[in-house]
């Protein structure tokens, strides 16, 4: 098993606030990894660093063995830097890709608060995500010289929607779908970019226990079918403990534990982080 995604000493600092501090983790091929932690622990910030939404203040992120994001504190930030390992990457070339470049490398994501294309129907939401693979330039696209490619994109969209059980809803407006279907559509849309690594940001948010159960089967299924590796942020412990191979726990921006679900459940620091330590005892 080889390492697919690796974070080394990633730190994200906004002004004086260190949201993620010295986070190192790795995701291996074919794994399902969960990133958990109390609210405000920096989980989504970490996601945003991986996907290029934020430029991390310090650290290196590698995908398939190649560095894709590298930064080190410099200029004014160097003086106010509050994280660790400030000089570790000082000699590395800074790499700061935009989110679309990350997606093109094979990392797709969903969002905590669902972000579908509001004005489009279900079909077009997925079809739009196929644009990433369009080879036609704008001229051949306008003059329909690339109709074969367009037909191919539509076929693949159909296939994907059928597999996801969304085909019956193809003409409905994406935002008028029931909540569970919206989540599913968002995942389908991410799959349309043909990722190797799928990042799920709280996929079970707002779901009842029954739906959560279905979701874990669903995540396993798409993982097998599309040969994916999954990294997810989740609060539902049933889901996390049920399907993850390994779990990382963040608290106040720092990693406090990592290991198999069983190890994590027994870890005192994790329990303290979630339940809080009573100070006056």
């Amino acid at each position, binding site marked *: 098993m080889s390492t697919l995604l690796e974070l080394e000493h990633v730190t994200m600092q906004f002004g004086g606030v260190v949201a993620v501090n010295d986070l190192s983790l790795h995701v291996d091929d074919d794994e399902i990894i969960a990133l958990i932690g109390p609210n405000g622990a920096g989980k*989504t910030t970490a996601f945003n660093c991986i996907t290029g939404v934020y430029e991390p203040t310090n650290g290196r992120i590698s995908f398939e063995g190649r560095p894709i994001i590298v930064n080190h504190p410099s200029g004014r930030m160097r003086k106010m830097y509050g994280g660790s390992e400030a000089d570790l990457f000082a000699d590395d070339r800074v790499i700061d890709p935009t989110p679309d470049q990350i997606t093109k490398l094979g990392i797709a994501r969903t*969002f905590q608060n669902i972000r579908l294309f509001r004005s489009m129907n279900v079909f077009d939401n997925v079809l739009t995500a196929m644009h990433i693979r369009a080879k036609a330039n704008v001229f051949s696209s306008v003059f329909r010289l690339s109709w074969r490619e367009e037909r191919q994109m539509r076929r693949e969209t159909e296939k994907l929607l059928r597999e996801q059980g969304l085909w019956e809803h193809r003409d409905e407006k994406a935002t008028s779908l029931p909540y569970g279907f919206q989540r599913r559509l968002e995942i389908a849309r991410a799959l349309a970019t043909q990722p190797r690594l799928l990042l799920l940001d709280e996929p079970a948010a707002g779901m009842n226990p029954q739906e959560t159960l279905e979701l874990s089967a669903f995540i396993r299924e798409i993982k097998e079918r599309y040969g994916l590796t999954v990294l997810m942020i989740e609060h539902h412990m049933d889901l996390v403990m049920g399907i993850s191979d390994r779990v990382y726990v963040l608290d106040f921006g720092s990693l406090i534990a990592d290991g198999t679900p069983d190890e994590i459940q027994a870890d005192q620091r994790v329990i303290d982080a979630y339940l809080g330590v009573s100070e006056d005892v």
Partner: protein
Amino acid sequence: MADFFHQNLSYFLSGISVGGQYALIAIGYTMVYGILRLINFAHGDVFMCAGLMMVYLSSSFPFFISIPLVLAMTVVLGFVIERVAYKPLRSAPRMSVMISAIGVSYLLQNAALYFTGGLAKVYPEIPVLSRSVQIGGAATRLVTLVTPFLTVILVVLLTLLIKHTKIGMAMRAVSRDFETSQLMGIRINKVISMTFMLGSLLAAVASFLYFTNYASVTPTSGSMPGLKAFVAAVFGGIGSIPGAVIGAFIIGICENIIKGGASIFGIPGSGWTTFSDAFTFAFLIVVLIVKPTGLFGEKSVDKV
């Protein structure tokens, strides 16, 4: 050197003076933007309307009545515009509000066009302001000297108002966080109205000073000063009052230096005046690219 200074003093003087006038307009932009995140495209036209009101009112009233009347009416105009054109769109997308602002600007210009019949109206000579004076050999009007001082006094008063009164505190709270201050029980509509009224008041003051210099008012005479004042507000860091004032002075001075290009740089040509307008916008684009937060603006991070 002394000769050069003598010849071109008038450009520097009018630069400072125009800068002060822009500053008074720019405060209206920057305060509204700070609170509503709206470019109030109609603000320049409110300023123009104040000029026209003065033209009409001064023909039937003495100055000690017409000046306060213009101030009051401009404040009412600002209040009405906000209530009619912006308040109903409070929860609409930002683009809609901006379109509404453009609509108001179009309406005010067309209304002015109708009432003036498209003719330039001669601005009355306000006795004290239009008196001629000699400074260092340059003939100018008293208004040129009065403007910077009046601007500074008004800005100090405004800053005191914002720092030390209850409504000022509410304004600062709202511009910091719209939603939260609403939850804290601040009457948001009152604060917004007040902001528009203050902005209009200052625009009216600016109109006395500006049109005394330019001597005539046309329906479009508000748009250029308005846009330039907006540029000043962006340059100073939108939302910041001292920023807007400093930005306005810098732009006023630069613009007049360019206007005097023929004599200052010794390059002849009649295009310097049109070019000074272009300069302002080129400057704007440069500022937006190099430092979009302006001199004193704060950076904001979008939440994903």
